[in-house]
């Protein structure tokens, strides 16, 4: 396969994964490839990334696809085609190992003859000493031995990864390493030193896991071909991850992405302030400037418009049906509160409570969320969402605080468990406030099905927006400002 074919397949896959690769960027990449030899894999990877990936959040996706398409290039990454080669290679590694005086366990023959216990022992040694070459060799060996890969079997890489790691008992490895380290150390380690050692071992274990993963991927690519493999590895980009189904890792990256978004929101609102309509005539300043024109008011001056501080009220459903979204919502509230001075936040299930204080800017986000979940008084009867009751209480307690400058943000799926809707509250809110927006984490096609009454509420708001991922949230922010 020529480089050109490989590249076009690669770029097609990037596009399929959702990366916006334009034609010019494609051409740039081709130019770049001419300058940097494909044999220098690291440099080659960065060259492609510089031309094709224009956002750091896309880097992960790019890297995965790159590994799939180019992992078989370059001599050191070639998978030996038959077993004799492999044996020879392992044997050579074994020799090297012995020279370093660390292969005590495997003195007879290749690694194939080792027992699982011995492999675990060797792995521990390697992790202990941070021995890169040994770790790589062990990763190979353990994949070959434990993963039980069968050609053509249609299972994902994670299955093999799980099987391999389970056999190696990596979970307990950290404790064992720490213990061994304690024994080895001449004197008692201080807390600080211990912590540092632990982080070091953690990063080594993580590195080993990645080696294993890479090895599995290499073998799978060799078995199924790059294109099919890339397809199974395709994951949504961070901005397309659904809030409702985000896993822990994805939540982490969402959190990172939120910060610039709220800053953007704040910047947009602030800018609107500055460039807004000019104020009324400033008489004093006009007369003063007219003196330089001999008393002719040639240069009228206007009062600087008084900056209106946007006030925001966030009312969020945190019931079980939107649990994952609620966590995200709270992160959003936290981030917004860092940017605006006047934000009040409320959470509800069937009762409602104000949680503004929990998010005061100096508090740690996880503490804040914990406090909301434990301390906020949001359960009235049974802890099933009751929008109607929550809204009524809201109106009773806080309705008077809504003024013409207030923007109200309602977050929830409007699944009301067939309780009374009390949509008059929303109507009143809209009358008294500046804007009322509703963000719904459900797909649009589910709206108004079952007990969802988003349509009824929605008719009184300034807009109901589907808000399932960052992209949609961003679009909403654009529209709002």
């Amino acid at each position, binding site marked *: 396969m020529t480089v050109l074919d490989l590249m076009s397949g690669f770029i097609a896959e990037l596009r399929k994964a959702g990366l916006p690769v334009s034609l010019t960027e494609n051409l740039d990449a081709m130019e770049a490839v001419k300058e940097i030899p494909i044999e220098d894999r690291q440099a080659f990877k960065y060259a492609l990334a*510089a031309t094709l990936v224009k956002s750091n959040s896309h880097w992960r996706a790019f890297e995965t696809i790159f590994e799939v398409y180019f992992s078989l290039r370059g001599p050191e990454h070639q998978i030996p085609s038959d077993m004799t080669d492999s044996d020879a290679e392992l044997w050579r590694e074994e020799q090297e190992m012995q020279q370093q005086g660390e292969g005590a366990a495997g003195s007879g023959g290749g690694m194939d003859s080792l027992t699982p216990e011995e492999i675990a022992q060797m792995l521990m040694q390697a992790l202990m000493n941070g021995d890169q070459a040994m770790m790589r060799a062990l990763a190979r060996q353990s994949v070959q031995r434990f993963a039980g890969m069968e050609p053509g079997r249609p299972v994902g890489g994670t299955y093999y990864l799980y099987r391999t790691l389970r056999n190696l008992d990596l979970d307990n490895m950290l404790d064992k390493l720490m213990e061994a380290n304690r024994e080895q150390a001449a004197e008692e380690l*201080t807390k*600080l030193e211990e912590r540092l050692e632990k982080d070091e071992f953690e990063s080594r274990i993580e590195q080993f896991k990645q080696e294993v993963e890479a090895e599995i991927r290499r073998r799978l690519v060799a078995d199924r071909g790059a294109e099919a493999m890339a397809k199974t590895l395709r994951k949504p980009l961070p901005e397309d991850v659904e809030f409702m189904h985000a896993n822990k890792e994805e939540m982490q990256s969402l959190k990172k992405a939120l910060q*610039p978004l709220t800053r953007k929101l704040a910047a947009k609102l602030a800018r609107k302030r500055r460039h807004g309509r000019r104020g009324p005539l400033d008489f004093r300043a006009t007369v003063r400037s007219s003196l330089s024109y001999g008393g002719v008011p040639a240069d009228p001056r206007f009062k600087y418009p008084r900056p209106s501080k946007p006030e925001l009220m966030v009312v969020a459903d945190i019931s079980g049906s939107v649990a994952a979204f609620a966590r995200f919502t709270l992160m959003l509230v936290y981030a917004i509160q860092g940017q605006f001075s006047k934000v009040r936040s409320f959470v509800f299930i069937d009762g409602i409570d104000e949680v503004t204080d929990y998010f005061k800017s100096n508090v740690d986000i996880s503490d804040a969320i914990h406090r909301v979940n434990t301390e906020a008084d949001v359960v009235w009867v049974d802890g099933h969402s009751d929008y109607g009751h929550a809204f009524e209480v809201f109106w009773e307690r806080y309705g008077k605080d809504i003024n013409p400058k207030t923007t109200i943000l309602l977050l929830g799926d409007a699944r009301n468990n067939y309780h009374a809707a009390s949509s008059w509250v929303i109507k009143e809110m809209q009358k008294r406030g500046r804007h009322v927006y509703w963000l719904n984490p459900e797909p649009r096609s589910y709206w108004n099905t079952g007990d969802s009454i988003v349509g009824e509420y929605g008719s009184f708001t300034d807009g109901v927006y589907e808000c399932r991922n960052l992209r949609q949230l961003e679009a909403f922010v654009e529209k709002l400002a």
Partner: protein
Amino acid sequence: MENRFESVEHVRDGLKKVHYLSDDGIAGVVFLAQRLGKPILVEGPAGTGKTQLAKSVAEMLNARLIRLQCYEGLDESKALYEWNYKKQLLRIQADKNSDSWSQVQDDIFSEEFLLTRPLLEAISSPDPVVLLIDEVDRVEIETEALLLEILSEYQVSIPELGTITAKQIPMVFLTSNNTRELSEALKRRCLFLHIDYPDMEREKEIVLTKVPDITQNLADQIARIVRSIRQLDLKKAPSVSETLDWARTLMLMGIENIDAQEAKDTLHILLKYQTDITKAAKELSVDK
């Protein structure tokens, strides 16, 4: 365009000579940018050496560094060029009677009356220059368009004068702290480089090069502690420059071996929020 670099290694060694430790990514992109004649958009957390990269490349190439600091409200007359109105007025008044109108008109819109601003200066310079457009995310999205012509064509069009094309292609660096999404048009014209916090090994090397007389042992400890702190969930993780400040402080205090108490006492150099400091102190078990 002549090739200023032979290879990626050449770039890396060159940067090392001016005390900038690059990695494969940074050196590769700088090399590529020079070969393809494209600007580099550098993005990443604050204090990871984005601006320093441009400065170091300038030093390495022995080129002049022209810097355009971006801010909200930046406009043409401050970024590109401006007519020198006062001089033009003087010129008109100086020979009120002698010249015909058309001659004066031709005259006052010549290069003599043009005040060059950083962007124009960078492309009209006969010597090699490095142009640094700092914190490009601070300008409004509309102002970004100002940059597009110069970034893709290396030319500036002045209605009264015509188009000024670059005498030499400058190396252009744009830095961004990612406070907002840059426009597609701008991104498309640039090579993208994300500089993240360095890994432990590189951080140690950086400390060793930047802080004279520091011992291997101390540098190693510093790098390890900083890595552990960065893994915590903080409001603001310590940047490279803060690591260096910390290293210098420890040097001044004559500390050879960081123990828990000293680490705790100097944490405020690494971290800037009280909540972060408390958290780090607790996490590193030095607060017991």
